[in-house]
């Protein structure tokens, strides 16, 4: 891990929502080859943190560095190296899986249809290429979204609850895909309430970055509420 290049650094990151801090003084460095699981109870800001790191939300204090450069200066390069799979899968229900993937393929230049079909085969959706997504189950929908990983050229994968609705074999396949990505020098930031079965899993617990007592109290409320 000592020689791995640092990809993302968070400096003094803080986020305020509804007049209370979700987290503050968050300092962390993420290296190539890591899978980092973001931990924290419901409402502790996991999704918010991922949205900030993905560039969806700009509502934060502090700095984010991409390969040691401020994100402001390298936004374009970062965007080219980022795959964000949010809480909402970003799949159009009235399109077929193949049509959905074609649009994502356009985001990163063009990808041949055969590669997209191969990607669908890898997530066990062979034969569903031309079935409208509203006919698929929740787990299959999640698999369509995860098929993006198969043809992605992005270095950083930010995955918000990717294991939701997946069956056991789906979870195992996703885990091995994440391991393969890190072996190729990628970085994975992931939230999950399930245990992730990956060697050398790094953990970032948002509860380690409190601001003050008032904040802690409100976090407890969030945890039980």
């Amino acid at each position, binding site marked *: 891990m000592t020689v791995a290049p640092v990809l993302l650094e968070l400096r003094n990151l803080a986020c305020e929502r509804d007049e209370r801090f979700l987290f503050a003084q968050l300092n962390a460095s993420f290296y190539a080859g890591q899978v980092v699981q973001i931990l924290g109870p419901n409402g502790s800001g996991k999704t918010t943190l991922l*949205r900030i790191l*993905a*560039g*969806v*939300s*700009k*509502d934060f204090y502090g700095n984010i560095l991409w390969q040691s450069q401020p994100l402001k200066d390298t936004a*374009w390069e970062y*965007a*080219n190296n*980022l795959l*964000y799979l*949010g*809480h*909402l*899968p*970003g*799949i*159009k*229900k*009235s*399109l077929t899986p193949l*049509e959905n993937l*074609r*649009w*994502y*393929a*356009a*985001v*990163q*230049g*063009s990808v041949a249809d055969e590669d997209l079909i191969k990607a669908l085969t890898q997530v066990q959706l062979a034969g569903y290429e031309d079935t409208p997504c509203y006919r698929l189950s929740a787990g299959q929908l999640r698999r369509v979204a995860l098929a993006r990983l198969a043809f992605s050229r992005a270095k950083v994968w930010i995955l918000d609850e990717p294991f939701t609705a997946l069956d056991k074999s789906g979870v195992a396949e996703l885990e091995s895909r994440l391991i393969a990505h890190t072996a190729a020098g990628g970085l994975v930031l992931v939230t999950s309430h399930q245990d992730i079965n990956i060697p050398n899993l790094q953990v970032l617990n948002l509860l380690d970055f409190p601001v003050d007592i008032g904040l802690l109290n409100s976090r407890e409320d969030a945890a039980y509420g």
Partner: protein
Amino acid sequence: MANSSLASSLFWATFKRDLILAFRHKGDMVNPLVFFLIAITMIPLALGPEKAVLMRIAPGIIWVMALLATLLSLDSLFRSDFDDGSLEQLLIAPYPLTLSVMAKILVHWLATGLPLTLMAPVLGVMLSLPASAFAALCYSLLLGTAAMSLIGAVGAALTVSLRKGGVLISLIVMPLYIPILIFGASAVQTAALGEAYKMQLAVLGAGLAIALLLAPLAAAGALRVSVNG
């Protein structure tokens, strides 16, 4: 350059995807057109078939109904993208958001503005619009509906994160639609009287040019704010 080919490919990909979606959701697409058709069909039934009366009000009625039909279709412009998360993906793609927004507006116009324009002459016949006004009706609606799609996109972008944005869109967008309505209806009215209507068309064209320049930028900015919150 790799970037420029990437840029054009996402524009067309979004354009193609939205066009497919428009045709898969035929109900949504046909709804404003049916409203336009029904509302205008009602007018002669309610007012009686007196030619002089209908001729007098035809330009205004057709224009007002076209405007309302456009308004009806705006809410869905970004709504489904917001709900299923593809708006976030559009936002963070290594691609100018303004251009992807432009692709979506173009599809919106092709699915509502253009059909409205094509239907208008038929409805003009129903309201016994003089033959001299048909060209003016088509030209003015062609320019006007495009400007309304563009301006409407700003309203839709501002209200996309609100659960009940429908009323607010109308309030935001209506004041900006009024000049288009005035000059559009006036072009048809003037043409019906057999006079030159180039001035009104020129104003509509200028309005469209300004909207083309500013609306996608404003809509992209508004989308960022809406998704952020």
